[in-house]
Every structure is written in structure tokens, then in C-alpha cells.
């Protein structure tokens, strides 16, 4: 295909003269672009759904508001935890964002089972779309909902007098961490859905998974307050790293026990590995 401004090639080596590897590399940029176009197609679809019916965004907002306004305020007043030089309400605000993203994302497996029952997933699987792009598209759709939670939590935090970090780079960092966290938990959820296959069974497992992930993390209390065995679990729980990263970016002064580079490394590794595993097992859902 010739585009305006590009000359026709003078020499056409043809298929025979071009080694296969070179041809593959030549196609690579296009393949990468297609991969992200497809991932984006699924996220855009989620955005359109939310635009047609935004009620879910509002009902989803209730839970984090309750956690911050009631739990956060009461525990702050009780001075139950030692959170160093920051008030407890500042400590818990990033934790509640992490928790909201977890709660939104962990039930994406149910949505996938539902789409399987409706036959939507089968049609997606019959298109030339890499499985990991289907998984990543779903995961980032969860991220989109996570971002709406972020807006609400920022608004409540401001109302409660939490000193927020408005540095644009820090805000961008928070957006990135929300998307990364949503990718991890939504993909975990899709992997579980691929094995359990029915909504009833998934509901049971979803409950079983969510609460331990939440409580065995540093989302609502510092790791220093935990017994050793719980501290060991928290140290391998991605939610801890998500809350820690958010805590260093969202509030002033920031607070981090692992350090942002380690947080990003751990979260990035979780996301890549889970998307690859998810891509491998997602097709099981339509068997």
C-alpha cells in the first residue's frame, strides 16, 4: 500500500529474497498497534456501557465513602494505630482506594462467566484477537471503573481535610497504579472463572478470596501492628504493594515502607505474569 508522500520502492525483493525473520520484524510494529487497538476496543466498549447507564458508578461509590467517613473518622478519633507523623485518616485514604479497586476488579470473573453464558465471549474468541489482549482489555475495563472510584475518593478525602498530593506527576502515578492494581485483581478473577466456570461457584470463591486479600494487607493498618505470620502473608500480597505505592503518591507527606521502585516492580511482575497465565487459560471458559 502506498501512502501520499511515500515513494514506491525501487527494488522489490519479493517474498523469496526476504528472509522470514525480516518479514516478521517488518510486520511487528503493525502487530503491536493492532494488539493495543483491540485492547482499547474492549475498554471503549466498557466506557460506552457506563455512559449509557452510570447508576452502577454511583452505587459503587457508597462503600468507599462509608469506609472513609465512618471507619476512618472513628479509628482516627480513637488513635487505635500508630501511623507515625500522619493522622490515621491520611493513612487509610490510599488504602481505601486500593481496596475499592480490589472489590471492583475481583468480580470481573463473574462478568466473564455472564458473557460466556450470553455467547458474547465465544464471538470474541472467534475473532483473530490474541487471548492476552482479550484478558488485558477486560482488566483495563476494571481499571476504568477503578478510576471512577479514584475521583470519588479524592473528593471525600478533600472534604475530610486529608492533605492530598496535587503534583500532576503524582496524580499520573496514582492513575497508573490504579490501572496496574485493577489489571492484577481482574486477571486473577478471570483465571479463577476459567476454572470454576459457573457463577454460583465463583461467588463462593470470590468471597473467600476478597476478605483475606483485604485484611492480610497494609490497606487499613500498618504492617507493624501485625503478628509475624500475618506480616509474612502481607509481604506477598499484591494489595500491600498497591496500598504502599498509593500511600507514597496520594498524600502529603507520603509514606512508604517498601519504596516506590519495589512497589512498581512487584506490581508490574504480578500483572505481566497474571496476564500471560490468563491468556493461556481464558479459552477454557468457552469449552
Amino acid at each position, binding site marked *: 500500500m502506498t501512502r501520499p508522500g511515500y515513494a514506491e520502492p525501487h527494488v522489490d525483493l519479493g517474498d523469496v529474497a526476504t528472509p522470514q525473520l525480516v518479514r516478521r520484524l517488518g510486520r511487528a510494529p503493525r502487530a503491536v498497534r493492532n494488539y493495543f487497538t483491540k485492547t482499547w476496543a*474492549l475498554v471503549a466498549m466498557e466506557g460506552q*456501557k457506563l455512559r449509557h447507564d452510570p447508576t452502577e458508578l454511583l452505587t459503587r461509590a457508597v462503600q468507599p465513602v462509608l469506609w472513609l467517613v465512618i471507619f476512618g473518622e472513628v479509628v482516627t478519633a480513637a488513635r487505635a494505630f500508630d501511623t507515625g507523623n500522619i493522622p490515621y485518616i491520611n493513612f487509610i485514604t490510599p488504602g481505601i482506594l486500593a481496596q475499592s479497586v480490589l472489590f471492583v476488579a475481583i468480580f470481573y470473573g463473574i462478568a466473564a462467566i455472564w458473557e460466556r453464558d450470553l455467547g*458474547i465471549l465465544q*464471538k470474541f474468541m*472467534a475473532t483473530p484477537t490474541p487471548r492476552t489482549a482479550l484478558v488485558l482489555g477486560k482488566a483495563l475495563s476494571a481499571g476504568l471503573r477503578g478510576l471512577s472510584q479514584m475521583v470519588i475518593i479524592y473528593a471525600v478525602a478533600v472534604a475530610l481535610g486529608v492533605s492530598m498530593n496535587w503534583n500532576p506527576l503524582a496524580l499520573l502515578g496514582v492513575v497508573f497504579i490504579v490501572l496496574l492494581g485493577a489489571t492484577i485483581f481482574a486477571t486473577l478473577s478471570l483465571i479463577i472463572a476459567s476454572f470454576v466456570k459457573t457463577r454460583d461457584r465463583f461467588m463462593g470463591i470470590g468471597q473467600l478470596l476478597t476478605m483475606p486479600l483485604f485484611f492480610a494487607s497494609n490497606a487499613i493498618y500498618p504492617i507493624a501492628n501485625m503478628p509475624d505470620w500475618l506480616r509474612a502473608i502481607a509481604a506477598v500480597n499484591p494489595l500491600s504493594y498497591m496500598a504502599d505505592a498509593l500511600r507514597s503518591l496520594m498524600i502529603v507527606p507520603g509514606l512508604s515502607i517498601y519504596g516506590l521502585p519495589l512497589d512498581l516492580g512487584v506490581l508490574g511482575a504480578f500483572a505481566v505474569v497474571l496476564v500471560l497465565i490468563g491468556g493461556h487459560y481464558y479459552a477454557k471458559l468457552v469449552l
Partner: protein
Amino acid sequence: MDRFTLSVEAGETFGLLGPNGAGKTTVIRMLTTLLPLTSGSARVAGYDVVHRATDVRRSIGYVSQILSADGSLTGYENLLVFARLYDLPRDQIRARVEEALQIMGLSNAANRLVKTYSGGMIRRLEIAQSMIHRPRLLFLDEPTVGLDPLARGAVWDYIRRLRTEFGMTIFLTTHYMEEAESLCGRVAIMHLGALSALGSPKELEEAVAADLGGDHITLNEVFAHYTGGELDSGGNYRDTSRVRRTARRLG
């Protein structure tokens, strides 16, 4: 599924018939790469379904038995996502979506939410989704199940149009004999996972007439002849609940 050998010519409309549970959907799911083959081999549009799955997916369109358009999106949006998943060039997407809507007679309903569509419109939208990339081969699994006779006739007209205007090869399953007679050049009858008859509707009728010594044999009688005529030969709970759910959604 066993003893199943079949070859479909380019440009023909081929019908796979059989009672519920005979394995029609299994065949379609294997040919559309959704279900792995445990043995044997299959080539679709010249590509092996196991080793060249992506090429197969690029060459085919698939409409599943269940109503699968997304009710919480508009018709336009339902097509947009498939235009992107089928790698259509960015500058052609809008034109192709509008063309697909126009071919399937849905232009006026493009910006309405699909949950306000009638059953026949949803089916046509799904066919539009599966042909937006102009595939060589279209798989339709029970394309008119649960539709009233009028809507069914309309869907048949649109399917015929795809063959005459775009030269698409169409592979459909059905258990409505009048559908097979009206659309298909050749049919295969499946029973308990195996192929029991293959030919044009007319050939099969003549063969059965010669067999039974009957005078005028209908395709219904042909069907009964080759499937043993037993009631309740198959169909499990999941199949049945799926068909009922589709029927309910169609109202």
C-alpha cells in the same frame, strides 16, 4: 463425535441438520477454533484449525446459537468493537460499520440500545457483526431459532443476499427442515455424533423415496428416516436451558 468426514465447496450454502444433541454445535465450535480437536483434522478456508487458528479466525464469521449482541450498547457500538477486533483499517471503520448496518437493514436503529430491538433485528445485527470484515466463510448456528415466521423469512432473505452479493460460503446448522430446503444447496444429517446422510435436499428425498417405496417424501420424513425418528434422542440440560433462554429473550 466420530466417523465424521465432510467437505464444503466455496460459494455454497451448506446445512447441517440433526436433532438436539446430535453434535451440530460441536462441529461448528471445532471449525471456528473454539473447541480443540481431540483427533482427526479440519481445514477451514484452506487453513488447519489447530496450527493456523488465527488465519482461520481472520477468514470466518461466527454467529452463535445464543443471542449474543450486547443489549446495553447501541447497534453501532456493537459493530464498532468487532470492526476493531477484525483489524479493519482505522480510516475505513466508520464506513464499514455503516455499510454493514445498511446491508442488514438496521441503519435507522443504529443509535438505539440493542435491548430495545426485536428478536429478528438482534439476529440481523449479529450477522452484521460477523460479516463486517467480509469473511469468505460464515458459520451460523441455528440462525432463526425462536423467531416468528415473519422474522425468520426476513433473516433468510438477508442470508441469501450475503451469498449473492459477496459470494460468501455459508455453513449453517438448523433443525427446521423448511429452513434447510429454502436456503441450502446441500445438507448433511447428523445423528448421535456421526454423519448419516449427505446430499442436496432433493437427492435425499429421492433416495429415501426409493428406499421406502413412498410416493412423495418430504425433508421431514427424510430427517426422521436418518435419525431413527426417536423422540428424545439427545440434548442435555445445558443445551435445553440455552435454547429456552434464547427463546425467552426473543419474546
